[in-house]
């Protein structure tokens, strides 16, 4: 959907105003700025209202009618509130109009009573306009409501997306963009249908079968219960960690311990980095074992075989003549069997080239010689395996020593902090109390993590039992058709559900991977510091700071998180467009062309970050509309926006006086980037 003209009539502060979102040019951004309260958010809501009939106003949510116009009405008189939107979808022009008629009930009625709402949709056919039936369905196809939060959003949503503990938002966004909601719902529904067939099985089948199905249902119930408990514990861990983050902030503000706390933070950061390095080393070790660990065991065989082949050569049974194919290979690689370089024109090159002949040589010769050709490489890998491994083990030990040292230092600092038991009136607690709580939380988190591990083990066991029971149910010898049918149908429901589950997970991960890449690229393009953004397998948005040999997850980097969140939304728009333009296999995930409309994305960030956000904005979608508060409309933001905006509007808010009510007019300031 490409937005074009928006016309508002009597809608909140807009009496009769027009705004055009479509630039149609290279500068794809339309900027709307005005002071706080002038109606920027209302514009956003107007778009939602005309599209879906929803509007989420903070103040006076039911008051759509412009107050000034309302005040002119006598009780019993009516007024129409309307929003009209011209848009293009699939290369067809549409005109959408939503009108609500209000009647003023009495003198002090400023909301009005809703009398009627009409929604009309027309599409352009040649020169004429045609009426379109079922407008909400057609609009829904163009820009689904479930996605509206994604593409029409404000700073609060950005905050949410970028929040440290809000991986759920990202996952939901991805689910929405891919229409995964349908998959999600069908999973739930199929479960219930399966349940029905199970009940039928119990009712109609033999006693043994009934018992088995009961067992199956019990096990399923237990597994679900375990999942629930795991989720709860994870949530608790999140909460405790957030609490500790809070405690850290508080400790920083208490004079007596501020420095200790800062030191501790620094050490913890270092320790985190070292632990990452340790983890990386383990990965390296495993890689070595995986690719070369077999060599020490195979070396005897390799040596013996080489000797045998050499013996054959001595006996003249293997001519060390090279087959043509091998000659070609060596000449192309410019390297001989022993590793000696073969440069064209050199004697050695000529020598090898001379082996090309018309004679056929037997497969064994070739195989033998190829084998010898690999020996050098095998030899090298074998000896390097042990040296490499030893090096890694040594590094690992020294890292561990460093980590142990840091542990001690950090403990020491913690003790010192806890020694301060003077009450701090501002924080309403003493450092000791805060520190004690902090330690308690850390311990509790450890316990919870152990619990989760145990629960997972338990779940695995139950899953295995469940598999067995399922098999017994399938193998049960039953005779009545009703029972056999119920069993088959139950299985069908189960299998389809499992299939959808897999597709669902696969699709989610696919989108996550794609999105992650895009976010990473956008981030690299900005490159203020050594930050990298990532959406993990668990849909968490992580900002990592690049250190010397590794990277550490950074918590306090709000500006970066916001940029990453915007980049994430941009990536979804991209994915949706890709989907739309490709021949997608399924009808359900068609994708689409979506605009991005954002209300105050600059938040309370510093100039540098604001500048960066400004740079990111034009890349996010083909059509971008940005609402900016006047207070943010200065310095770097104005400069950057000026460069990229195809059109600029100003909302002029007139707060009115005793005789007139507030109203906002929309003024076109510049067009096509000119001043």
């Amino acid at each position: 959907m490409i937005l074009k003209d928006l016309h508002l009539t009597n809608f909140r502060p807009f009496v009769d105003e027009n705004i055009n979102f479509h630039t149609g040019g290279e500068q794809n951004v339309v900027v709307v700025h005005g002071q706080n309260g002038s109606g920027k958010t209302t514009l956003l809501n107007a778009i939602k209202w005309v599209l879906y009939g929803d509007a989420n106003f903070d103040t006076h949510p039911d008051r759509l009618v412009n107050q000034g116009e309302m005040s002119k009405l006598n009780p019993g008189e009516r007024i129409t509130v309307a929003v009209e939107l011209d848009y293009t979808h699939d290369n067809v022009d549409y005109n959408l109009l939503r009108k609500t008629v209000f009647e003023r009930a009495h003198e002090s009625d400023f909301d009005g009573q809703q009398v009627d709402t009409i929604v009309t949709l027309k599409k352009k056919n040649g020169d004429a306009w045609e009426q379109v039936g079922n407008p909400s369905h057609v609009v829904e196809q163009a820009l689904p409501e479930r996605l509206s939060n994604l593409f029409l959003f404000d700073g609060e949503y950005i905050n949410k997306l970028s929040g440290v503990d809000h991986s759920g938002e990202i996952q939901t966004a991805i689910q929405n963009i891919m229409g995964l909601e349908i998959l999600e719902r069908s999973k739930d529904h199929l479960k219930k249908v399966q349940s029905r067939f199970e009940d039928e099985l119990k009712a109609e089948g033999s006693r043994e079968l009934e018992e088995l199905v009961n067992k199956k249902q019990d096990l399923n119930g237990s597994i679900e219960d375990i999942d629930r408990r795991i989720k709860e514990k994870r949530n608790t861990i999140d909460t405790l960690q957030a609490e500790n983050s809070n405690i850290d902030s508080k400790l920083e503000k208490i004079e007596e311990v501020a420095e200790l706390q800062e030191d501790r933070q620094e050490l913890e950061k270092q320790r985190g980095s070292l632990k990452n390095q340790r983890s990386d080393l383990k990965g390296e070790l495993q890689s070595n074992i995986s690719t070369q660990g077999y060599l020490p065991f195979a070396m005897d065989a390799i040596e013996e075989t080489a000797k045998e082949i050499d013996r054959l050569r001595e006996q003249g049974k293997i001519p060390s003549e090279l087959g043509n194919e091998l000659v070609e290979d060596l000449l192309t690689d410019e390297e001989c069997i022993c590793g000696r370089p073969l440069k064209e024109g050199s004697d050695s090159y000529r020598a090898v080239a001379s082996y090309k002949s018309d004679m056929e040589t037997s497969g064994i010769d070739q195989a033998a010689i190829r084998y010898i050709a690999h020996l050098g490489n095998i030899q090298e890998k074998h000896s390097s395996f042990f040296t490499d491994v030893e090096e890694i083990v040594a590094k690992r030990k020294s890292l561990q020593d460093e980590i142990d040292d840091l542990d001690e230092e950090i403990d020491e600092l913690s003790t010192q902090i806890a020694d301060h038991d003077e009450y701090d009136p501002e924080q309403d607690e003493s450092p000791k109390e805060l520190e004690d709580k902090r330690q308690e939380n850390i311990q509790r988190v450890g316990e919870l993590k152990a619990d989760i591990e145990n629960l997972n083990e338990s779940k695995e066991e139950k899953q295995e039992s469940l598999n067995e029971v399922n098999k017994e149910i399938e193998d049960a010898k039953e005779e009545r058709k009703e029972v056999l049918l119920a069993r088959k149908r139950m299985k069908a429901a189960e299998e389809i559900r499992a299939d959808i589950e897999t597709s669902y997970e696969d699709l989610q991960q696919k989108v996550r991977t794609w999105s992650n890449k895009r976010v990473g690229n956008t981030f690299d393009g900005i490159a203020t510091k050594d930050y990298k953004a990532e959406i993990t397998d668990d849909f968490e948005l992580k900002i990592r700071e690049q250190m010397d040999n590794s990277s550490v997850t950074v918590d306090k980097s709000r500006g970066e998180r916001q940029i990453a969140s915007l980049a994430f939304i941009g990536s979804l728009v991209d994915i949706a467009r890709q989907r739309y333009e490709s021949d997608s296999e399924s009808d359900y995930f068609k994708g689409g062309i979506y605009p991005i409309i954002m209300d105050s994305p600059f938040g309370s960030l510093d100039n540098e970050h604001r500048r960066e956000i400004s740079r990111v904005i034009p890349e996010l979608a083909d059509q971008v509309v940005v609402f900016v508060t006047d207070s943010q409309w200065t310095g770097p933001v104005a400069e950057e926006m000026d460069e990229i905006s195809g059109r600029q509007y100003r909302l002029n808010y007139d707060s009115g006086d005793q005789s007139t009510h507030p109203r906002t007019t929309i003024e076109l300031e510049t067009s096509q980037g000119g001043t």
Partner: protein
Amino acid sequence: MEKSGVSIDPETLNHIREKVLQTEQEQLHFKRPPTIINDIEEIIKNEITEVEFDED
């Protein structure tokens, strides 16, 4: 692995799955009353009507 007692051919399963997803899609878009579970049950019942009787 031993052969299990109940087997459903993949084509039938695919067919049912597509029908289920289609129904879900319609239900979501048109906001029909929530008969979806009955609908899905019906789909499966209509597609699976035959069973092979166990031989001893």
